């Protein structure tokens, strides 16, 4: 039983670190503020959520688990609200969307 708890905690920590890394790469690489909102909210919900779940399993039925559930619930509510607020302020202040510059391919180079 102890081994199962250890494996579950390690697996959830690994999933959390993977989603944190994916969110970081997305924020660094994507071209636009509207596109960057997507990995940031994934980073909040999936990464922090699975790390908090791992710590809730690791702590057992002690007093810490109530605090962990309060943090998790508040994080799930606040991350969606923060993403919406940032996107709304970007739209209202008139930031243009990213458009891919299409290269003009010259099909007839001799003309």
């Amino acid at each position, binding site marked *: 039983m102890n081994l199962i708890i250890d494996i579950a905690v390690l697996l959830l920590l690994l999933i959390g670190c993977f989603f944190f890394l994916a969110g970081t790469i997305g924020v660094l690489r994507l071209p636009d503020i509207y596109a960057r909102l997507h990995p940031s909210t994934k980073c909040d919900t999936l990464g*922090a959520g699975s790390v908090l779940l791992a710590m809730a399993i690791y702590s057992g039925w002690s007093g810490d688990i109530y605090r962990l559930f309060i943090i998790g619930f508040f994080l799930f509510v606040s991350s969606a609200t923060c993403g919406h*607020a940032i996107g709304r302020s970007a739209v209202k202040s008139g930031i243009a969307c990213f458009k891919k510059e299409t290269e003009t391919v010259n099909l007839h180079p001799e003309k």
Partner: protein
Amino acid sequence: MNNAITLAAIIIVVNSLLCLYRTIKGPTVQDRLLGINIVGTKALTVLVLASFIFQSNFYLDVAIVYALLNFIVVVVISRYLETSGKRQ
């Protein structure tokens, strides 16, 4: 198990240092706000991990306050950016 939690905390700290690049470089104010939001979430997660590394409860209370502060900062600054250009 303690070593694994420490390793996860180190990985999350390195990720948040990488996210500071977007905060410094970001072309608009909203990009900087997004970077600050992500760094705040990662600091909260590191605080939760630190409470289990050092076996002390009060880091979790600090993490709750940090979540509240992060949420209020992002909502207030984005609301300010939204309405500040309209009153001129």
